[in-house]
């Protein structure tokens, strides 16, 4: 009797918690979809607008689907209209950015790895201070160093050039890349370095043969971070370069602002997407390593 009573009340509770769970689950989906659409919505508008003709843009609303897939504005954004002077388009600046971002990412990552290696595995007197001052670089607002940097670039004779921008981005990337690598290498057992020293490997051999091969996760994190920072940078680009040496973000700005006649929203949108595509590609290719690298510090093995 008692048993029966208990089991039936258990059944009731079971039923009740089942409904609660279903409700909570749907509520969760609702919230997630809401936030996802909040983020996807601007992208949708950009893509749709870039595929419309100006006629359609004037007549329709933001959200309407284009009547036909029209890539003209993309071609204009990329290659221009071909009427010579005053025709601004992205292609040369896109290559400027590539020429800037590839060496800058490479050098800043490499130097950061090296400094991180020294600061953790070849400790010296005062290394803590060196690290502290390097960290300072992470917190200095970039606006504060624009003038001194301009003087420096001028003295070196590389102002308004891609080389100058590479230097600036490398220098200001080092604090971050050092921080990344230092925090990664600190969890690598120092016994590895000791073993390699006994085996007869020197400073560089240990770095290239022992540490770099196990650094893939943190290299990915650093490269994504640096690539995004440098590719999306507008401040340094607009300050230290103009005209033909400008990177893509500066050119995008010029394009959108300098249109004398009608505002061509479709071309503007297409340009903005083109300027954003490389970072998207990097994220898609390396995104999962990014998460993995951020969360896993320790090297097990």
């Amino acid at each position: 009797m008692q048993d029966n009573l208990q089991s039936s009340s258990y059944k009731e509770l079971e039923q009740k918690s089942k409904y609660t769970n279903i409700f909570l689950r749907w509520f969760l989906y609702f919230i997630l979809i809401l936030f996802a659409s909040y983020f996807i919505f601007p992208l949708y508008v950009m893509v749709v607008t870039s595929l419309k003709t100006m006629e359609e843009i004037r007549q329709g609303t933001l959200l309407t689907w284009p009547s036909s897939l029209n890539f003209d504005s993309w071609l204009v954004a990329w290659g221009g209209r071909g009427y010579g002077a005053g025709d601004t388009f992205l292609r040369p600046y896109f290559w400027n950015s590539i020429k800037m971002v590839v060496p800058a990412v490479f050098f800043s990552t490499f130097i950061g790895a090296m400094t991180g290696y020294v600061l953790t595995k070849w400790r010296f007197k005062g290394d803590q201070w060196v690290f502290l001052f390097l960290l300072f670089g992470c917190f200095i607002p970039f606006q504060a160093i624009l003038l001194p940097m301009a003087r420096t670039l001028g003295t070196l004779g590389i102002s308004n050039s891609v080389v100058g921008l590479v230097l600036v981005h490398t220098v200001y990337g080092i604090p971050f890349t050092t921080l990344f690598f230092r925090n990664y290498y600190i969890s690598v057992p120092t016994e590895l370095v000791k073993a390699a020293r006994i085996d007869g490997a020197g400073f560089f051999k240990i770095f290239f043969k022992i540490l770099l091969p196990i650094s893939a996760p943190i290299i990915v994190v650093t490269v994504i971070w640096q690539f995004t920072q440098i590719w999306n940078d507008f401040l340094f680009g607009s300050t230290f370069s103009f005209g033909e040496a400008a990177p893509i973000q500066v050119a995008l700005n010029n394009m959108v602002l300098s249109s004398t006649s009608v505002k061509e929203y479709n071309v503007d949108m297409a340009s903005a997407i083109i300027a954003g595509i490389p970072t998207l590609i990097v994220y898609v290719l390396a995104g999962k390593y990014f998460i993995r690298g951020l969360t896993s510090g320790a090297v097990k093995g």
Partner: protein
Amino acid sequence: MKTLKIEELSKNFGTTEVLRKINLEIDEGNFLVLLGPSGCGKSTLLNIIAGLETINEGNVFIDDYNVSKVEPKDRNIAMVFQSYALYPSMNVKENMIFGLKQARTSKEKIADQLEKVSTFLQVDKLLERKPSQLSGGQRQRVAIGRALVREPRIFLFDEPLSNLDAKLRVEMRREIKKLHQQLKTTVVYVTHDQTEAMSLGTKIAIMNHGVIQQNETPENIYNKPSNTFVADFIGSPSMNLIKGKLIKNSNNISFIADDSSLEVPINNYDFKDNSDLNNKEIYFGIRPEHIYFKKLNEDDFDINLRADLSEYIGHEQIVTLDYSNQEILAKFPSTIKIELEKEMKLYFDLAHISLFDLKTKERI
């Protein structure tokens, strides 16, 4: 010629003194264990022998050659680490021959050595594997192999078994012992585990606060600890140290514990210095395993003590006894029945006692 000699060695980290005037010698083929609690400087000493740590004062000699300023790779040593320190990106084979390659050894010699060592350690089937695909015992074996292929004069082991589980640790311990018996190489081995030290070492150097407390054979360390630190550190449970004083009259010497009137005759004790013994305040040291529940030797001293507590640990039990308000421990087979809160007749094996000065804590 001494394979390894350390002379008046001192080491500081900033203002902290880590090692103080260490003197140490090892003959060819010996197995020296550096034993001590954590922070006693034993690992630092090993790193100094390896050349991974600089010296503030003193010298290190290998085969009578002063290597104090010689690079680790040129000291003809090899080291096995606690975390194994296998290079994660290389497979077993590459790990083992890395050192030989750095030394530009000929290809034939490398292949020979690799073959010999890997079959010897039974890792020849694992050569293509990465360290992450090996079990703890296999990693340990590869780490030892990496040291072996270089045919060093001295092997340095830095707590190599601490990362293994209890069962594997005992197995690997035996293998290291076997290895040493077969190869007869000189070994310096750091551990904080006294069982490891006792079973492996031909000599044990016990360290505390950067000073070597005693450096002798395991038997002497166990039977004749040179001070109360060693007496307390070795043995499980450790030696009972009973506070009291000596009484000497004419030809008889005996010990009386504080708050007690019972005289324990210690006429056969081998004193270092016979003078000035009367009324000397001392610790009377007797190991738990040298207190018997039945008379074994003619000279065993019988005594009545109250049992307060008994801890069963399988093959034996540890009994807490009251010796005139001082707690002492005894080890008995678990088969005998102990009645708590009652006096029982026990026997002290006086052939195995140690006496220490109460003030200096040194053996007398």
